[in-house]
């Protein structure tokens, strides 16, 4: 069964969509979209480094994404406006990544594959990495769900309940770095954040509780992955961007329909 590239691609998309959904909800609630971008763009630098050092791309992307996420977490609240800081870091990470790639001699690197993803080229071992990463992120988010939610609501309320918001932030940071590292193959560094945010945003009008939103986001994300792959196959369009397009159409549908359904 896994010998069919479409089935491998579908399973890969499924895995990332389901892991990204609850995490994406936190990215939306905490207004961390730019934070996600910085992490994802840094992954390109990770890819370049891992090729230069001949290590696995996943490990390189994970390491640099994590380093970036930790840097941003540490620098936040130290006198820089967050959006300025993230704007500087996100774009410089991408630029440094692209420049480093040009230094790689003798290695032919398909940059497009890392910027926009190449889901159709997912092989069995990629699939194993993607599903392990996705399962890890999902378990992490479920395990910390309640403290994370409390810390998201208000750091002081969290403190009063004996929860350390910094620690919860670290959990999110770690989850985000893992999702970036596994998703870079699916939608690429430039569109990872779309996979986090769009399903969550599309789920918002359907939900009355955080749990409903996370669950709906997973369903919408998975539907976008399957539908997007199908469409890209039918119309011969690039798979990653087609998945994101499908997700945004779903977003438009829930956003518009919520205006006509009284709640």
């Amino acid at each position, binding site marked *: 069964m896994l010998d069919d590239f479409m089935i491998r691609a579908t399973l890969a998309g499924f895995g990332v969509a389901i892991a990204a959904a609850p995490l994406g909800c936190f990215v939306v609630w905490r*207004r961390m979209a730019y934070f996600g971008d910085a992490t994802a763009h840094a992954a390109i630098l990770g890819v370049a480094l891992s090729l230069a050092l001949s290590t696995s791309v996943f490990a390189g992307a994970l390491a640099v994404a994590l380093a970036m996420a930790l840097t941003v977490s540490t620098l936040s609240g130290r006198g820089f406006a967050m959006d300025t800081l993230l704007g500087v870091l996100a774009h410089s990470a991408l630029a440094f990544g692209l420049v480093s790639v040009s230094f790689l001699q003798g290695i032919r690197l398909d940059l497009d594959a890392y910027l926009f993803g190449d889901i159709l080229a997912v092989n069995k071992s990629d699939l194993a990495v993607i599903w392990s990463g996705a399962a890890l992120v999902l378990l992490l988010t479920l395990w910390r769900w*309640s403290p994370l*939610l*409390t810390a998201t*609501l208000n750091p002081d*309320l969290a*403190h*009063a309940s004996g929860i350390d918001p910094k620690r919860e932030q670290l959990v999110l940071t770690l989850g985000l770095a893992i999702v970036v590292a596994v998703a870079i193959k699916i939608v690429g560094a430039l569109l990872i954040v779309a996979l986090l945010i769009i399903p969550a945003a599309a789920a918002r009008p359907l939900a009355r*509780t955080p749990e409903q*939103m996370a669950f709906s986001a997973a369903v919408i994300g998975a539907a976008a992955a399957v539908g997007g792959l199908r469409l890209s196959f039918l119309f011969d369009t690039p798979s990653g961007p087609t998945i994101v397009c499908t997700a945004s159409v779903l977003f438009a549908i829930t956003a518009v329909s919520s205006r006509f359904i009284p709640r």
Partner: protein
Amino acid sequence: MQSPMRLVTLENLTVRLGGHTALSEVDFHIDKGEIVTVVGPNGSGKTTLLKAIIGAVKPRSGTLKHADGLRIGYVPQRLAIDTTLPLTVRRFLCLPHRHAEPTLQEALKNAGADGLIERQMTALSGGQFQRVLLARAILEKPDLLILDEPTTGLDQPGSAALYRQIEKVRRDLGSAVLMVSHELHVVMSASDRVICLNGHVCCHGAPEIVADAPEYRALFGSGTQGALALYRHDHDHHHHGHPAHSHEHGDCDHA
């Protein structure tokens, strides 16, 4: 007379925030069942004091002691819930720990927020929102209820109603109450002790002692005189026959 149980004790507490000293060498304590109010101008460290007590800001020096197993109910000054976060009152009350339905209903009833349990948090009015915050704070029957300007954004009748509710909650649960308030007449008539803060403890003691202290007058000036006069009338009325009590605890010094 049994010696009162200390819930929280601060000794010589100094807190620095972003390069400036927010609190300097603060001594403070609150006992079981007491109502203590913190007053002071903007930026005087009132919120910082409360945050230090709940552990949200780390002191640079000094000690902070909680009684063993102390349960704190906290109502923050501002709670902005992002509209992207769907949250019913029921779900909000169950953060971070789930509670049985009767517990939720009882807390809402005690906080004067009956019938709101299915509502979205973002759809509540200001007064309803504050009551739900109060309900969450009293869910676990706290020994100490900490309220940071609980009536922010409420109109006069709304804030009077909320203060009555807090007073009722305190009677029902027997919790001590520590709050920051700008409404001096309320503070003065309802508190056992008042702490006047301006980076350091300017003066503290029974309300009438603090109101007469020159440090307090220097901070609040003549603008509050009318309000104080109003309260005094009230206060004599309510606390008639206990003049010795306040003098016992009265203590004003310039730190």
